[in-house]
Structures are given as structure tokens and as C-alpha cells.
């Protein structure tokens, strides 16, 4: 039995559909788990992908500690031999705690999963995404996270699974949430965009990001920023691509005024096509670029926006 922890808001998040897809391909029974406020409303959708759905809306289901306790307890109840969780930031702060509670091996941020006798084999990136590692673990129960945007979403079944409300014995975690800020963008989500235009420090000033946004608007692209541009306060953290930001692998990644530090490459190096615009021909970004223009971005970007507009018209 595979226990799948599903992320949701008013419906299943794409990450949940991806993890359910990965679970379906492992060809075992699936127990979907929905934890937190609003879980019941999402249960009928989850039931289309699972043999059974466990739902709990306990108000104490908040924070990594209590979420991990809930997942570990339900894993034991469902006699799961595999617990799958999204490799989102939130998933990756809960999953290790689940593994410790179950004294289980933890396989992190899988890009590929394969069942083996008594366990699981995965591939994941290491060394700032410069190395692909194959790992395996054999144990009564294994915990794994699945890297977002690497798995085809699951297929709904004709026969929905059963939904059960479950009770958990939780105590207050001792963490109080004082406030939350959700960064909303009117553009396509960075991690789901087929084209991403990213600006770096080479833009020279925050107002020059207008060039990035204009090109993104013409191409229907997502907007990204380097750590340097975010650190300088030019752009919100939610746009950051790299080791400490988001990982993207669009069809085309257009890096403008980006030098190409390895921490940045680890977040976009798997893009299908990399395009670089930089005045420094020696910039490391050109070494990984499929296409590029060596020149002054302040002259090239307006021309590029015009050329792209012409194409789209």
C-alpha cells in the first residue's frame, strides 16, 4: 500500500496529481491522505485516483511537527510500505520528520521512481544539480518526496475509492503563526511556464525589469530573477530561480544580464533550450547556452521585444 500525502487548496494541487501519478505507475494500492481545513471538500476528487481516501480536518493540523505525526500514524494504520509526499518546500519540511518517526529510509526529491524487491529505487539531483544520483532503500517502509514538475499527473479511475474520516491524537505544537504573505503574480506560474524570461544584476537597476516584463508579456512567459537581483531588493523572492529559489525546466529559458553562477544554474540548467543575453562573452551562462546574443542588453532587449511582437502579430 502506498500512502500519498496530497497538497490541496480548494482542489488538489498539481503537485498532488503528480505524486498520485507516480504512485499509480508503481502499481500498488493507493491510500490518499488529505490533512487540514478544507480536506473534506477535496475528498471526492482525490477518490478518483486512490483506493481509499483518509480525511482529517483537526484544527491542530498545522506545522511540520503535527503534520508529520499525522502522516506517520496514518501510514502505520494503513500498513503502508511507501509514503509519498510532494517535494515542495512544505513537503520537504514534513517528510524527513515522518521518516524519523517511522525509523524509515528517506529518499528525497525523486525525479524518477522504480519499485524494487522490498523497497524503492529513485533518481535525484545532487551537487547543486550537477550530478544525477541513483539511490535505493530496502525496508518495511520507505519515505520519499517527488520533485515537482517531473511526473505526469495521475489518471482518474471509473470507480472512486472510499472516503473515511479519521481522528488523530494531536497536541498543540507550540508554534504560533503570526502572519502570512502570499505573493500573487498575474503571470503564468514560473514553474509551469513553457518560456521563462529571467533578469539578473546586469540589468543595472530595478526599473529595467520593465524590459524583462515586456518580453515576457509578448511571449506569454513567466518572469524570473537571480538571487543577486532579489538580494538587491529589485524583485520579490517568489521570482527567484536557483539553489535557494525555484527550480524550472521550461522549453526556453531566456537569461538576460545573468552571469550564470552555479547556484543559479542548479535551478534552470535542465531547461530544454537556454538563451543568454549578456555583454560579457566570457560569462559562464554562455557555456550552457543554446542561443545567445553577446551585446548590450539595453540596446538588444527593445529590439528583441519588437522582433517578438512582429512574430506574434
Amino acid at each position: 500500500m502506498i500512502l500519498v500525502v496530497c497538497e490541496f487548496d480548494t482542489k488538489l494541487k498539481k503537485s498532488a496529481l503528480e505524486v498520485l501519478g507516480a504512485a499509480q505507475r508503481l502499481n500498488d494500492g493507493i491510500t490518499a491522505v488529505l490533512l487540514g481545513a478544507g480536506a473534506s471538500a477535496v475528498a471526492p476528487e482525490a477518490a478518483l485516483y486512490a483506493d481509499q481516501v483518509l480525511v482529517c480536518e483537526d484544527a491542530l493540523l498545522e506545522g511540520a511537527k503535527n503534520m508529520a505525526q499525522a502522516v506517520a500514524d496514518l501510514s502505520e494504520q494503513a500498513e503502508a510500505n511507501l509514503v509519498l509526499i510532494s517535494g515542495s518546500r512544505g513537503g520537504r519540511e514534513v517528510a524527513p520528520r515522518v521518516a524519523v518517526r517511522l525509523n524509515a529510509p528517506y529518499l528525497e526529491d525523486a525525479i524518477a521512481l522504480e519499485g524494487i524487491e522490498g523497497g524503492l529505487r529513485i533518481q535525484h539531483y545532487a551537487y547543486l544539480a550537477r550530478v544525477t544520483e541513483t539511490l535505493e532503500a530496502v525496508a518495511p517502509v520507505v519515505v520519499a518526496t517527488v520533485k515537482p514538475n517531473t511526473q505526469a499527473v495521475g489518471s482518474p479511475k471509473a470507480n472512486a475509492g472510499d472516503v473515511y474520516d479519521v481522528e488523530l491524537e494531536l497536541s498543540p505544537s507550540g508554534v504560533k503563526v503570526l502572519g502570512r504573505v502570499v505573493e500573487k503574480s498575474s503571470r503564468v506560474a514560473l514553474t509551469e511556464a513553457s518560456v521563462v524570461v529571467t533578469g539578473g544584476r546586469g540589468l543595472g537597476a530595478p526599473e529595467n525589469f520593465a524590459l524583462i516584463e515586456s518580453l515576457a508579456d509578448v511571449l506569454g512567459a513567466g518572469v524570473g530573477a537571480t538571487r543577486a537581483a532579489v538580494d538587491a531588493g529589485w524583485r520579490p523572492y517568489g521570482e527567484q530561480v536557483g539553489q535557494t529559489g525555484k527550480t524550472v525546466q521550461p522549453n526556453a529559458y531566456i537569461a538576460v544580464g545573468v552571469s550564470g553562477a552555479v547556484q543559479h544554474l542548479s535551478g534552470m540548467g535542465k531547461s530544454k533550450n537556454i538563451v543568454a543575453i549578456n555583454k560579457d562573452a566570457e560569462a559562464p551562462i554562455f557555456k550552457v547556452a543554446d542561443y545567445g546574443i553577446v551585446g548590450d542588453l539595453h540596446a538588444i532587449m527593445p529590439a528583441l521585444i519588437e522582433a517578438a511582437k512582429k512574430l506574434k502579430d
Partner: protein
Amino acid sequence: MKILCLIRQVPDAEAKVKAANGKVDLEGATMALDGMDEYGVEQALRINEGGANTVAVALGNARFEDAIRRALAMGLERAVHIETDLLLDVVSQAQILKGIVLEETPDLVFVGGQHADTDSQALGAALAEALGWNQVTWTTELTFDHGTAKATHDTDDGKESLELSLPAVITTQQGLNEPRYPTLPNIMKAKKKEIRKTSPDQYGIVNSKVKIVSQEIQERARLNKLIDGKDPVAAAEQLVKLLHEEAKVI
């Protein structure tokens, strides 16, 4: 307040990583204190000025001593080195480090948000669970008031401010502070600071729960078609044509 900083020695971010026969080869690679861990060391030194009651803890091979000396040169008071050539899974690491925490009884443990060798974000959370403590991951702001911590951290879609009691595990990242460079006198002083050595078997761990089957470097061949931008309009039109007709991505 007593503070532990977990630190690691990793390949320098700019160093070329090599692999041979399905295994990463770090022989001859430039190694350094993980940049993510430096934020924790710096934060510890800002909380306890002068470095009193701050301890570096490292779990890894003999080469980790360089990272330990660096953290001591930044200003931490002393260090514990659990020396081993074993590459241990994160749950086993957490079990060993729990033992060290129970010996040292800190109020706060700093851990780097993501390790530059395993690309793992798990150690802070795993250690917090082993101890039954709360955690804050990807922390960008941290203050204290009468045994209570207030922290701001990054989430999947924005940020969150939390209040929690100590002890706790805090994972660190850019934005928390600007780590200092060790001064020459402090580098000299660090050579005399105490490093207590121990080993995983002292904490009941003798092998890893996860096996590394292979490590490969898969570099995508890139076309490297570079256009001279002297004539911006011509260059832009050529690029758009390539992306539309050849790459078929716009």
C-alpha cells in the same frame, strides 16, 4: 543561550565536479564550508557576541576538519567532530546528532537550509523530529524575546512569520545575515581551539539506510550558437528566427 551550529565540508560551488565509474570523485576538488551553513555560524556569533557558548558540530570524514577550522576562525568557541568515512542517510545522521545535542544541551541548533553536495534539505527537520523539537526552515529573520523566538521564513508561495518556544532547530539561508570573513588573528586563534572527536558507533549507528547505486554527470550538449550584438536589431531578429524556426519554442 547555548547554540550548536551543524556544519559540513562540501565541494566549492565553483569547482568542477568529476565522476568516474559511476561515482563522484572529490580527490583534488577544492572543498569549503557549505555556504548555507555560514549563515548559521554568523547568526550564532551575532546572538552570542564573542562566540561564548557556541559549538560547531560536524559529521563527516577527516577533510571536514577544514570546515571546522573555518567556523572556529569565524568565531565559534569549540567543535565536536563525529569522524567517519560512511555516507549516512539523513535519519541515521539525525540519530547521531540527537546524541550530541543531548550531551551539549543547546537552546538552539542552526543547520544549513540545503546541502551543496547531497542537495538535501532534510537534516534540520530530521534532527528536530529526533529531538521532539519544533523547527523553522528557510529562515530569513530571527529575533528573541524571553526564551521565545520570532522567525520569518520562506514558504512555497510567499512567507510566514512564526513564534515558537525554545529549544528549536533553525535552518538558515541567504538573507538571514551577511557572514563575516575570518580575520588573520582569528585564524591563528582557531588553530588552538578544542575539537572533540567521536564516531557514529558511539551513537549506535554503523551503516546507512540508503544505498548510493550510482552517480553520473549528465551534461546536456548545448548548441552554443552565439550572435554578435553589434547590430541589435539584426541580432534580435536572427535570435527570434532561430527560436521560432529551429528550436520551435516561441
